[in-house]
């Protein structure tokens, strides 16, 4: 009830969609960094750690 209700709802919707897209971007960026770190760790482990430990 009130004259500002529709504009307020619109602003809330906009803020929600912005927060949602920002969260998705952060999530994907972290997953990307995690994949890179996992690849580097795999190289180091399978090259130096496991190989030299067993030979």
């Amino acid at each position, binding site marked *: 009830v009130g004259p500002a209700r529709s504009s307020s709802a619109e602003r809330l919707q906009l803020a929600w969609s912005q927060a949602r897209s920002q969260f*998705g*971007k952060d*999530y*994907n960026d972290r*997953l*990307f960094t*995690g*994949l*890179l770190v*996992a*690849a*580097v760790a*795999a*190289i180091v482990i*399978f*090259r130096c750690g*496991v*190989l030299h430990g*067993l*030979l």
Partner: protein
Amino acid sequence: MDCYNGFVTAFCGWLPPLCCYLLHCLQLRSAIMLTDTAPHCCCCCCHRFVIKVALLEAAGWLAIVFLELYPHLMGGAGSMYETGWWKATAAVWEALVLLLFGAGGLLLWVAFGAAALLGWRRVRRRQQDKKAVLTSRLGDIRDLDV
């Protein structure tokens, strides 16, 4: 053109260390093959293990090169995060986290721990056997010298 520039920028950063590393790998592999004087059974195991580890290591290198190059190669054609394979990767990650930290995850951790413990004991026993064989051979050589 943007795509080409992105490719050159991304690839030139990785090329020198990649070349150095590949040369290092080739030298080390040949050294391992030449200096491997272990008994026959152990030798087979070692070579089989080297091949497996080399495959996993190559997969790691391929993943790095792909992850570094692909976003640059896409240029202005959209985000990598909108592609189907990225969504599948995210879904796999979420399933993995749910499996490990969700309901019943503790049981899986215990199973992993038990498997790691058994594997470590097996490797240790094999190393002790190898050491015992070498020690007995050394004793034989000393007897021959006397």
